[in-house]
C-alpha cells in the first residue's frame, strides 16, 4: 500500500511538472519509469499510473476550461459525441480516461519489465 501511494504521488507530481515543458506522451515515460523503480504487482502498477494521470488530466482540463468559463469546452462537448453532448463534465472525464489508460499501460509495462529482467 505504501508503494502504491508512493508511485501514484510520484507519477502525478513528475507528470504534472514535466508536462509543462515536454510533449504530452511524457506521461507514458514517467509512469513506466516510476513503475520500474517502485516495485508493485502489475495490476497495482496499472492502477497507480491510471489514477495518477486520470486525476492530473481531469484537474488540468478543468482548470484550462474554466479559464474561459468553459466556452470552448461546451462547444467541443456538443461537437464530439452524443455521450458528451451537453456535459462538459463528461468531456473532462473522457480526457482523464485517455491519459489514465496511457499512463496505466505504461506503468504495467514498466512493472512487467522488472519481472522480465529478474
Amino acid at each position: 500500500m505504501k508503494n502504491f501511494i508512493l508511485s501514484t504521488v510520484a507519477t502525478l507530481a513528475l507528470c504534472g511538472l514535466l508536462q509543462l515543458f515536454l510533449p504530452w506522451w511524457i506521461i507514458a515515460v514517467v509512469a513506466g519509469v516510476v513503475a520500474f523503480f517502485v516495485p508493485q504487482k502489475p495490476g497495482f502498477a496499472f492502477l497507480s499510473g491510471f489514477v495518477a494521470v486520470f486525476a492530473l488530466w481531469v484537474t488540468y482540463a478543468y482548470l484550462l476550461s474554466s479559464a474561459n468559463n468553459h466556452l470552448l469546452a461546451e462547444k467541443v462537448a456538443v461537437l464530439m459525441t452524443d455521450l458528451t453532448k451537453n456535459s462538459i463534465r463528461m468531456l473532462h472525464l473522457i480526457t482523464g480516461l485517455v491519459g489514465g489508460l496511457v499512463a496505466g499501460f505504461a506503468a504495467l509495462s514498466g512493472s512487467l519489465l522488472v519481472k522480465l529482467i529478474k
Partner: protein
Amino acid sequence: MQVYFDDRLVPHVFAKNDADLYFMQGYITAKYRLWQMEIQTHDAAGRLSEIAGEKTLEKDKLTRRIGMPWSAEAAEEYIKKDEFSRNLIEAYCKGVNAYIQQLSPKDYPFEYKLLNYEPEEWKPIKVALLLKNMANMLSVYEYDIENANFISKFGEAEYRKLYPDWVQDEEPIVPSGTPWVQPLSAKELSTSEHRTSLSAMAHITKPDEITGSNNWAVSGSKTKSGKPILCNDPHLKLSLPAIWYEMHLVSPNMNVYGATLPGSPAVISGFNDSIAWGVTNAGRDVRDWYTIQFKDDSRNEYQYNGQWVKSEKRIEKHYVRGKGVVEDEVIYTRFGPVVFDKNFGQASSTQNLAMKWTAHIPSNEFKTFYLFNCGKNYDDYIEALNHYTCPAQNFVFAARSGDIAIKEQGRFPIRNKATEQGKFLSQGNSAVDEWVDFIPNEANPTSKNPARGFVSSANQHPTDSTYPYYYPGVGVYENYRNRVINQLLADNNAIDADFMKKMQDNNFNLQAKEALPVMLSLLDSSKINSAFYPVLEQLRQWDCYNNPNSLAASFYEQWWTTLYDWLWDEMSDPLYPMKKPGAYMTLKTLQNDTASQFFDVKATRPKENIHDCVTLTFNLMVENLTAKYGSLESVPVWSLFKDTRVEHLSQQPALSALHVMNGGNRGIINATNSTHGPSWRMIVDFGDMKGYVVYPGGQSGNPGSAYYTNMVDTWAKGAYYTANFIKTPEEMGGKKLFSTTYKP
C-alpha cells in the same frame, strides 16, 4: 508599432508609415482570424479537398474551371508591376507570416486541430484569391443558360412577358433626367440576330435567395447637423468567424476606420476624417457563356471565324486528402476557360461551354481601397474607382465638406442591344458575340449631389432606359428595398444618426403590402375551411411589418412561398435549369396575366385557374403549418419562424450562433432571412464625426473566446456600437482593454 485594443477587441493600429501599418494589420488579423483567412483562400483556390477530402472535389474542380486560380495569378503579376501596391501587399503578408512563424502546433487555432492540418505561408497570391472569391460570390447574376432553356421550353412570347428588361415600379440608382456621358463613337457591333436553341445542359447553381445590400447618403440639406450622413449594410451569408474584421488604422497618410476583409490589406467599407464610402453589389451581367466546337477529341483546336484556332491546356492538380492526386485538364480559349465539357458537369453531352468574365481581366482592386482609405474629397473618390474592375459595386460616397455621390463601378462590356448580347448563350465559333470594348469609366452611372438631397442603392437598376449603353436587366434587379429607402429619405428632413439606426433595422414589407391585397381579393372564401378563418383575419389586420413578434408575417411568408412554388412549378426541371421570375413579376402575373398557363399545377389532374391557385395554396399553407407545429395555435411568431442562424464556416452547429431572434426578410431594408442578412451595419455622421457600427459576430475567430459571438445580440436588436475613432492612443482613455507593442 503599437496596437491598442478597445473593450470590443477592436484593434487601433498606430504606425510610422504605411508598410508598418499593413504589416501590423496582417499580424493582428492573423492573430484573431488565421483559420478563416486560410480556409477562404483554399476555397477560392479550389483546394478544399486537401483538407476535406473527396466530398469537396467537385466544388474544387468548378472553382478551378471557372478560372479562379488562373485569374488570381494574372492579377498577382499585374499588381507586381505597380511597385507601390506590391510593397504594401508584401508588408501585409510579412505580418501574417510573422504571426504564423511563432506558432507551435499546440498554439494553432482550434479548427486546425479539429481538421488536423497546419497553416501555410501567406503569399500575395492569397490576397488576389480573396478578392477573386468576393468577385465570384457577387457575379452570379447572369442567366444565359436559364433564359435560353426557358425560351426553348415555353417560347419567346412567354419569355418577353415574364422577363422584361425594364419594369414600372422601380427607381433607378441614378435619378431619371441625370445627363449621361454619351459614347464618343458608335462601336462596330454585329447586328445579326441569333439564338442558340438548346438541349439539357450544365449550369452553375445560383442561390435561391439573392443576397443584396443597401447604401445611402444624405446631404447636409436634409440632416439636423447640416453635414452629410452615410449608411451601408452589405447583406451576405451570415457566418462565423464573421466575414468582416473591424479595424482602425492610423499612419501619417491616413486615419481610417471600418470593416476589413481578413486576408487582404486596407479597409473595405469605412470612413476617415474627410470621407466615408460603402458598397452594394451592382449585379450587372459580367459573365457570358460561349459554345465551343472542337475539331476532334484531342481538343487541340476549336472553330473560330471559319478557321481552326489552337487551344491552350492547363492541368489542374487536386491533392485530395486520403486519395492522392487527381488531374483535371481544362481547355482555355480566346473567350476563357471551358468550364463544362465531356470531363465535367454533364453526364452525356457534347456541349462545351466557355466562360468569359470580367474577373479574368487583371486588375488591382487593392489600390481602389487604399486610395479610399487616405482619400480627402470627391476627386480622390473618382480617381480611386478608376482602378476598380470586379466585382462591380455601387460605391456610395459622402465628404465631410458636403459632397455626396454614388457611382456604379466595374468594367462592363459594351453589349449589342439588337442581339441582346449576353442575355442568352453566346456563339463561340465566330466574333459575332465577342466583347468588343468596355464602357469607359466616366460613362458608368454616376450621381453627384442630386437635387433630391440623397443618393441610394439597393441592388435595383442603376439607370432608367435612356442610358446609352445596353445591359440585360432580366430577373436581376430588386424592386422593393429601393422604393422603401427612397420614400423614407424623401419624406424626412432633419435626419440624424438615430433616424438612420431605426431605418437600417426597418422591417416594412412593401412586397407584402402590394401583394397581400391582390392575394386576398383572388381568394375564393367559399372553398376555405372555416377553422382557417382566424388566419385570414390575422392577415387582413396585418400592418405588413415583419417585426420579430408578428404572427401574420409567419402566415404570409408561408402562403407566399407556397403560392410561388405552385405557380412556377413548371420551372423546377433538373434537366433544364431555369430562373423563376422574381417576386415582382409574380405579382404582375397575378394582377395582369390571370389566364396564365402557369396557374395549373402539372402534378395534379384537374386544370387549376388563378382562383384555385390562390385558394388552394392558402389551405395548403394552413394545413402544412398545422402539421409542422402540431396545431394552428402553435405556429410561432416571425422571429421564431424565421429562426436566423449565424453558421460557422465548418457548418458545425456547435460552433454556430443558433436561434438569433430578429425581424426582417428579403425585400425588406433589414434583409435578414434564416441564413443571410446585413453582415456589417455602418452609419457615419459627419455632424459630430461619429461612426456607429455593428456586425453579427465578434472580433475573435476563436470559438473559445468571449469575443466570438458577443456582438450578435446587439446586431439582432438593431443596436450599435460607437466607433472609438480617435486621433492619438491617449484619447482611448477607459475604453482601452490592453495594448501591445510589436518589435520586428
